[in-house]
């Protein structure tokens, strides 16, 4: 019987600290440089793209980050997040149309409604894991879809909510270019909130729950309640995105609640890289841009292309674009240090 031998030189190498959130352990200058590049790109975006597409990218970035909060940091794949994105879109639209409030207030109301809706759905869903969790969330999202479809007096059914105003203290935001810069601070706040949640004591518990729920319970953490809280926070952030989307399009259609919207959010996150936040944002930019380009070129089967890319990513780059880039960058840094 030989005794187990440790290899501290392999295990304890401080330069190679693995940990909770892999991306956060990159050297500080790289993190700040990334942040600067990201902010510069966000400020430049409507100058390089059709501004309406840039607005969509911002909304979808929030939506994808919300899904990643669950998928990447809690280990829960929601296949029904359209419920929160769409419910907020409707509530935002209704508040904006009927109350005439500034659009950020309407969006906040929408996001709060989405968070509220996430309480009962999450309460029932977090008792399941894996594919069952995905199915439960999908089932509830379908229920929300049918309620919106039937409740015509409020949602206008298949006609959708028309003429959602972009009111903001008399400012003229009809031009998408200016509207983009009006919503950018809200989006950045939402993204910062997600970043903070991931890098909080709460976020650490979530990652523990993701990696070993039984162990987390043995440590005294009420796993269901943590998951539910993460679910509600995620619903709120998805709601922020959905509300802005409604104001951005000045119109809310049943599409916002359709199951393909939930599926697209998951695709965006997987494509960009699960559990990275940055990847969700990047994935949103790429997918929204690609879909716009395809539809502009008169291509009909958009789903075929995004679906095909999704399959390729899952088969070839399981870490997604951002995750794979991080791995490559790490290797490059390690080689340079040698």
């Amino acid at each position, binding site marked *: *019987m030989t005794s*187990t031998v440790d290899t501290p030189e392999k*295990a304890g190498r401080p330069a190679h600290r693995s940990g909770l959130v892999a991306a956060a352990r990159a050297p500080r200058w790289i993190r700040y440089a990334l942040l600067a590049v990201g902010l510069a790109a966000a400020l430049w975006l409507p100058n390089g793209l059709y501004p309406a597409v840039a607005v969509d990218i911002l909304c979808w970035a929030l939506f994808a980050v919300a899904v990643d909060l669950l998928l990447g940091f809690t280990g829960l794949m929601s296949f029904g997040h359209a419920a929160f994105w769409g419910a907020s879109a409707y509530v935002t639209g209704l508040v904006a149309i009927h109350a005439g409030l500034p659009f950020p207030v309407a969006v906040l109301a929408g996001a709060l409604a989405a968070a509220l809706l996430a309480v009962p759905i999450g309460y029932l869903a977090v008792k399941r894991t894996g594919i069952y969790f995905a199915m439960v969330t999908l089932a509830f999202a379908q229920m929300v879809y049918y309620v919106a479809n039937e409740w015509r007096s409020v949602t206008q059914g298949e006609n959708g909510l028309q003429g959602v105003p972009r009111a903001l203290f008399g400012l003229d935001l009809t031009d998408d270019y200016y509207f983009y810069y009006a919503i950018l601070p809200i989006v950045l706040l939402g993204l910062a909130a997600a970043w903070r949640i991931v890098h909080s*004591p709460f976020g*650490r518990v979530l*990652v523990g729950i993701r*990696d070993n729920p039984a162990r987390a319970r*043995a*440590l005294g953490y009420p796993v269901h309640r943590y998951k539910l809280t993460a679910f509600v926070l995620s619903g709120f952030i998805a709601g922020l995105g959905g509300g802005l989307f409604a104001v951005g399009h000045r119109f809310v259609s049943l599409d916002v609640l359709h199951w393909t919207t939930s599926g697209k959010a998951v695709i965006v996150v997987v494509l960009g890289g699960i559990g990275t936040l940055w990847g969700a944002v990047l994935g949103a930019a790429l997918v929204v841009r690609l879909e716009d380009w395809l539809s502009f070129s008169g291509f009909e089967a958009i789903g075929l292309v995004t679906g095909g890319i999704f399959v390729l990513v899952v088969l070839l780059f399981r870490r997604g674009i951002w995750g794979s880039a991080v791995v490559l960058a790490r290797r490059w840094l390690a080689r340079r240090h040698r």
Partner: protein
Amino acid sequence: MAGQALLSARGLTRDFRGFRAVDGVDLDVAPESVHALVGPNGAGKTTLFNLLTGFLRPTAGRIELAGRDVTGLPPEQVARLGVARSFQITSLFPQLTAQEHVELALQSPSGLGWRFWRSAKLMSRYQDRAAELLDMVGLADLAHAPAEALAYGRKRALELAIALALDPKVLLLDEPTAGMGLEDVDRTVELIARVRPGRTVVMVEHNMSVVGRLADTVTVLQAGKVLVEGPYDEVRADERVITAYLGAADAAR
């Protein structure tokens, strides 16, 4: 005896689809004692552990902790009431460092884990205590190694550090020396001996020399039932135990 027990079970039973894994077990763990559960494979030791820690609900019977009925409570509540456990199959968070494991355990009783709006840097308030505990189990130089990079014996030591971080009334150790080399076994026995003053330890253990060195009381389980209970030397000499279990183990040695 029942009145003074810190942790006790009465008629504890658990069925799995017609198979009775634990069958009417009465158990009394005296405060500040080391109580070993031994028995052949399939005797129901780990099932009993899972019942005592809330990971399984008993089919019948009752569990009391310091006179309080804790039957059927979920594991996180049992943990909060002061029952910490280690797992037979090492159960860690693969990507977390050793230090992060202990910090997460230390944080658990506080409300800090709910603060999603605060920085994780706040957890550094636990780093001194975490370093102390890691030092105690001999992991000081591996504090920043991810758990998945630790050798087996070190993972077991980390399990112990995490359980101790909860400052439990009762420490339940499921085969703390399973799969260890002799050197690590000695180290673990020393470690348990060092942390036991003032604590109550319940351990499942196959290694009879470990049981002999640590346990005040031994309960022998067989086919889900208590076969014999008593001090180590008495149990070791018991005819029924020798035929059921110890004889085979001694012969193998």
